[in-house]
């Protein structure tokens, strides 16, 4: 076992270093949410919990956060609804122009965000639509749509057709088969797509920048504040969202693992 003995240690070490590299700015953001600086949150000036306890003292941060949540939820509902229908059509039916539709869905993902953003802004400008909450939501739902289709399509493809056949053999109508068999089986895929949409929308800045008008989302708030120094309250909100998301991921992974174990026992 002398072969590649260097690789035995080198590869794990390299991987750990790469992961640490990924985590450095996250740790920095988290640590500086406890900074007791008054003006700009750049130099460390002591530990405090105040930023966490009085996060909404400066209402603008929390308002921006609220706007981002609202935009994320509405855009996710639109994108998930439209995208799920499209995914079902693409994976369940053969029709002419199917590859054209796939290409049309692929293109938004291959377009740089700045081109999507500038294109929509040019469109709203020439149509005389004032920029605001509505234009942000339209833009977000657009770039989330393709990701929803991809995610749900992958789930449809992994379904066992025998389950639906069994439903039809038992004289289930096609509506019954869909709502009692197909849809529940698709739900994890749809949920994953919705979560992905929300995450994409929540963190989007480039497209929002071109279509926000006077509305401030959380990333827009940070961008505007960046020139003069972002207040620690923004770090608090970002850290809070981060912890929440990690908890969600861990919970979903452990429940999935538990379900797999239960199925293994049955089988």
């Amino acid at each position, binding site marked *: 076992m002398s072969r590649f003995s260097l690789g035995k240690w080198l590869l794990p070490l*390299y991987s750990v270093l790469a992961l640490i590299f990924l985590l450095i700015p996250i740790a920095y953001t988290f640590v500086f949410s406890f900074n007791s600086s008054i003006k700009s949150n750049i130099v460390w000036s002591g530990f405090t919990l105040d930023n966490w306890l009085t996060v909404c003292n400066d209402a603008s941060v929390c308002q921006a956060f609220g706007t981002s949540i609202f935009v994320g939820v509405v855009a996710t509902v639109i994108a998930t609804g439209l995208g799920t229908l499209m995914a079902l059509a693409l994976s369940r039916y053969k029709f002419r122009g199917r590859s054209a539709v796939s290409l049309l869905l692929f293109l938004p993902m291959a377009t740089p965000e700045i081109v999507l953003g500038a294109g929509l802004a040019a469109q709203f400008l020439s149509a005389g639509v004032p920029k605001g909450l509505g234009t942000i939501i339209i833009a977000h739902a657009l770039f989330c749509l393709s990701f929803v289709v991809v995610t749900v399509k992958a789930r449809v493809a992994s379904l066992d057709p025998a389950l639906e056949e069994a439903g039809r053999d038992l004289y289930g109508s096609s509506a019954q088969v869909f709502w009692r068999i197909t849809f529940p089986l698709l739900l994890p895929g749809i949920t994953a797509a919705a979560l992905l949409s929300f995450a994409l929308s929540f963190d989007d800045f480039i497209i929002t920048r071109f279509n926000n008008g006077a509305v401030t989302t959380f990333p827009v708030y940070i961008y505007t504040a960046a020139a003069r120094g972002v207040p620690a309250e923004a770090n608090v909100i970002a850290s809070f969202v981060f912890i929440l998301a990690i908890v969600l991921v861990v919970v979903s992974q452990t429940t999935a693992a538990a379900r797999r174990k239960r199925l293994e026992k049955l089988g």
Partner: protein
Amino acid sequence: MAFAAFGSSAAPVEQAPRKRSWIAFVLLAPGLAYLALFFLAPFVSLIITSLSTPVEFGDVGQYQPAFKLENYATVVEQYWPHFLRAFGYALAATFFALVISYPLAYFIGVKARKWPLLQALMLTLVIAPFFISFLLRTLAWKQLMSDDTPLVHALKALSILPQDGHLTGTAFSVIFGLTYNFIPFMTLPIYATLERLDTRYLEAGSDLYASPATTFWKVTVPLSMPGVVSGTLLTFIPASGDFINASASFLGSAQTQMVGNAIEANFLSLLNYPAAAAMSVILMAIILLIVGTYVKRSGTEDLL
């Protein structure tokens, strides 16, 4: 991952009766209408805007439709360094992200298979940056690399950085930021293909007296190409259009402006919509060209 999913999900489609294809159109119609209205129509708007001309005696930001092709010549003449920097930085960032991501993805997808818990933990850490605002992450690097930090003092003490040198506001910091931001986009698709890699192929390689290095280059790398192609595209495309990292309030300076910065400034500050639109059209055309040839040459056309 996104790109790979488009290719792979086509295979197991059930052949449905043809007469029911009207259901497909009913399902597709709302989404297609949305894409037509907010994706295709904006492209047309962008092209019309890029050819328009200022309204005579009008205010700043007032334009009327025309066929002014000079707009394109003007922006190329004025902003060609921005284009060069955009593609140069994006190429460098894609290369560094690949160098960092491939071993990481290989470890998680192949070596860590024996320990599912470790695999899940490492994957969670790879996607962890997605859960915290990317503007704040970029600002964190700016502050860690700014003058008067231990890092900069150490580099100066080691004479790696000249005494009057800076880390931020340079091509280095912009490429650094782009690389950092897109590592997860590179790691995940490569992981997805390596995770499915049948290790018996690797055993076959060593059974045939190939050295581990030969097995790696002749077996592992070709089999992971779809992931590498997806990852490089998912990194290169957004990186070339990025304007955050290169912006002066983040990691860049006036000397590092990319085409994204020029589009942003022209559209939102100078209200020179035709220039911004012309640059967007050029950027998109170059990217489509690069992506097309790249996907063809790497032999993974089924990605589309």
